[in-house]
């Protein structure tokens, strides 16, 4: 039996590009699936999620205009606007 969570899909916009994911997927995962880095480090390195649990802040992005959100702790919602940090 599939749970309710796997039956529905949502589309989030990662840097204005639509990414379709099963509901219950975190924004961090959507960003990885979009092939994007979450942020650029102070010396210009691309960075992705490290700890997956809200400790390292490497996955921080802008979500619906809100700065510095830890994308590993936010679930994707339909139409959510995600901008990776440059």
């Amino acid at each position, binding site marked *: 039996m599939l749970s309710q969570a796997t039956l529905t899909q949502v589309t989030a916009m990662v840097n204005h590009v639509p990414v379709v994911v099963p509901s219950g997927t975190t924004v961090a995962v959507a960003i*990885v699936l979009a092939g994007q880095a979450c942020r650029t480090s102070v010396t210009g390195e691309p960075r*992705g999620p490290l700890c997956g649990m809200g400790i390292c802040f*490497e996955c921080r992005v802008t979500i619906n205009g809100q700065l510095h959100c830890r994308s590993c702790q936010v679930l994707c919602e339909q139409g959510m606007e995600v901008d990776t940090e440059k």
Partner: protein
Amino acid sequence: MMREARHHFDVLVIGGGPAGMAAAARAAECGVRVGIVDDNFSLGGQIWRGHSDDNQKHDKQGDAQRGEAARWANRVRISGVTALCELRVVHQPETGVLLAENLDGFCELTYANLILATGARERFLPFPGWTLPNVMGAGGLQAMVKCGLPIRGKRVIIAGTGPLLLAVAAYLRQHGAEIAVICEQASWGSLAQFGVALFNWPAKILQALQLKRDIAGVPFATNSWPVAAHGKKALESVTISRAGRVETIPCDYLGCGFHLVPNVELALLLGCGVRNGFGEVDDFQKTTVSSVFCAGELTSIGGVGLALIEGQIAGLAAAERTSEAKALFGDRQNARRFAQLLDRTFRLRSKLRSLPLPETIVCRCEDVSYSRLRGHTSWRSAKLHTRCGMGTCQGRVCGPATQFLFEWTPDSVRPPVLPARIETLAAIAGQSEMLQSQGTGEY
């Protein structure tokens, strides 16, 4: 809903993993008003993450854990605990008051008794290439997969140290990953001693045998560790030292964590005594600060079993049921011996201190390289001169790393313990009036 709210609880629990859930349920079952706060979107902590909606039927180890997780989740629900998820405590504006925020706003939390069950995080050690995307913690990679990252058909290397590596490898494999190799830094000898000592905990023997079946055929290398991760924009391959032989293996993900370290920041902020990096507690899990208790990985790394016992003791003690709490002391003693065994078995070898090259980044927030840190004699000196540990994670990643690399002791924490919005900070008494009088406040 959040703005300017104030919640009062007889017992307030911070952290919704096994220790926090057990503490909350036991306290609430005594008839007191209990709240539990977690920064994630659901209770369960890291170990029970996603168990409520995970449907991998062939995951036997998961089945047993799911049963236990479901039982405690049920007890939390039935006993009437107020669960406040996606909420993070950032500051203690005055004794007995905690300031917390979520994505929408902030609130104040007050309590008669407070139980800290903030758990542990992975210890990360720097090596060349560890900052590349798709190099994650072992638990970090598992958390991502639990949160929807497709892993089927992906080639994964698991490295570091500790029992978590095997559990993660088994989980990922059950979800279709190809585990190229598990690199465990501990020696075969110390793992053999660990195996023999396990006979003191029959339930853990069963778990170990199940794990062994789950990872049958996966190369497991002791005396092994990652030497470098390679890739242009993301990970492409990893060079490992495999029992003294160096080889490079192409892969999609590297999950690498060197056992666990406690999330002690909030305990430090509240002034709780800390011994050897862990929250210091008495028999009833009471800290050195009155009305504040600690339970779970915050006091020692002993796994779910110990966390559940400590959580229950703290919950019962906070609800003033001391005789019921005392009944669990024997179980705790036994579980603590397992924590000591883990500590002995998975102690880091000094060779790992030579993994970073001069240009390897140690502090990922401020991109501070190993060579810039090498000359400093203390964490404070390094912070003042290089900004190491002064970035967004506030030293949560590089603190434990430099503690191992240079034997530095991290000093006190400063509020807010997590980055917070200016409106939240303005809520701290005094500043809010000041902002209001200047006409820039929100209320």
